[in-house]
């Protein structure tokens, strides 16, 4: 009886023969996202660093912890900050859940960015994977948008002024900027309407878009013939069960361990309640936008409009411009020295201005030494 019920759910039991292992991959909704057999080349941790997978698992962690937080959080200026205090002090494990959500979000911004770097340095965006690269760029933008909309929700000074600066940058876009800001805030200033809009974007609209694009991203990996590999190593394959499935489980466990450790060791910041009359000095955007804020310091149009637009456009057209099939599937291929050098220079410059904005800027955005 028990085995009949189990069989109705799983179809194949624990797969022991080679044939059963191939069948197992096909007969489960979750497993059939994978191929039945997978290239040895892409199983090596040193090839992918598991960054896409880590990003996805962090998204799962964020969805679960976010749903729990939604049961207590109230998206209105009169109640938001108080509900944050409740989550931190009156909800059992509330502080832990909030910490996990916050650090997983920061981690996801970092791993998505690093995943993009990995795909570039291994030339994995080249045909036939051009469109999946574009989907990946959209996923990066969605990740930033999710993180940014979540940043306002605590309704503390940190949140309020970071979003003040962030949405003011939006208004610099020529033509539509002020209208987009008005639409985003649901008015002229950051108040009840803005908080509600950010909440709905953060909890529903953007996660749904993210889930759809993640599904498309994974599906395209399969349709484009699996992860990239050099031509000589395309054909050595092993069954995905157990070689791929258990590696993925191991990565999931590692992600959970690191998120737990971070959430137990470090508390998410919560400053005083949002106050439009007092600007903290210095007022800083979320860390992943501090590079932009540093550039904005040199000129709002240059840093807030020209640089980000140029970067996003360059990323979107890249796979349609650079279509040479050489140097795919290995890190830092010699044939791609020029492309890799240009990309690395821009990436390092972005990281550098972010570090400067985060650690080397004090009151009135004057230079300070962090030690």
């Amino acid at each position: 009886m028990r085995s009949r019920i189990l069989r109705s759910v799983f179809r194949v039991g624990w797969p022991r023969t080679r044939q059963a292992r191939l069948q197992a991959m096909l007969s489960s909704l979750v497993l059939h996202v994978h191929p039945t057999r997978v290239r040895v080349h892409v199983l090596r941790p040193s090839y992918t660093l598991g960054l896409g997978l880590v990003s996805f698992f962090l998204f799962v962690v964020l969805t679960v912890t976010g749903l729990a937080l939604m049961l207590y959080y109230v998206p209105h200026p009169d109640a938001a900050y108080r509900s944050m205090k409740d989550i931190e002090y009156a909800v059992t494990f509330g502080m832990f859940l909030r910490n996990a959500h916050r650090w997983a979000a920061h981690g996801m911004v970092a791993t998505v960015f690093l995943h993009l770097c990995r795909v570039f340095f291994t030339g994995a965006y080249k045909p036939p994977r051009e469109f999946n690269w574009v989907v990946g760029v959209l996923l990066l933008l969605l990740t930033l948008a999710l993180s940014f909309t979540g940043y306002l929700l605590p309704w503390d000074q940190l949140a309020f002024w970071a979003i003040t600066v962030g949405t003011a940058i939006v208004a610099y876009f020529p033509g539509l900027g002020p209208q987009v800001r008005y639409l985003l805030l649901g008015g002229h200033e950051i108040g009840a309407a803005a908080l509600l809009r950010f909440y709905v974007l953060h909890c529903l609209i953007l996660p749904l878009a993210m889930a759809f694009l993640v599904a498309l991203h994974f599906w395209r990996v399969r349709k484009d013939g699996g992860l990239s590999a050099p031509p000589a190593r395309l054909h050595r394959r092993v069954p995905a069960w157990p070689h791929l499935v258990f590696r993925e489980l191991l990565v999931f466990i590692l992600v959970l361990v690191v998120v737990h450790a971070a959430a137990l060791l470090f508390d998410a910041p919560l400053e005083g309640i949002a106050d439009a009359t007092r600007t903290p000095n210095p007022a800083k955007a979320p860390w992943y936008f501090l590079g932009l804020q540093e550039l904005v310091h040199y000129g709002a149009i240059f840093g807030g409009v020209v640089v980000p637009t140029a970067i996003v456009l360059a990323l979107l057209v890249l796979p349609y411009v650079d279509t040479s099939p050489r140097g795919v599937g290995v890190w830092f291929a010699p044939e791609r020295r020029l492309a890799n050098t240009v990309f690395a220079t821009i990436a390092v410059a972005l990281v550098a201005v972010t570090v400067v904005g985060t650690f080397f800027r004090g009151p009135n955005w004057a230079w300070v030494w962090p030690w």
Partner: protein
Amino acid sequence: MAVAGTTGLVAGALGLLGALARSVVPDVLYEPPRRFPVGRPADYPPGSVTFVPERRLYVFNTPAGFYAISAVCTHLGCNVNSEPGKGFACPCHGSTFEEDGRVRKGPAAWPLPRFAMVLSRRGELVVDTRRTVGPDFRLKA
């Protein structure tokens, strides 16, 4: 038949999406009014510069008359701090402004706007943030 069906489908979809897009633009704002009183002239001592935090502006009482300058930095929207005798400094990106709102040092590109100000019949100074005025504006009160 097919043409009529397709047209109907497209028109219906466009109508729904259009209505949806329009509905997202708010018509009624539950925000503080943009024309408001800031107290009586006597509340501001002669020669003073006063920050009115709930309105995010500075009221000047000079020998030539009153005027009001926005406290919202034209760069990215932080409140500028008054530095007596030296004008204003923004804590976010380091812009500084003269007492009259002109930019002394960037990154701000535009001066702090000066708002229209009138004396109401009840003898209150009333600021209208929807209207800006030139640098020569003074209100005799």
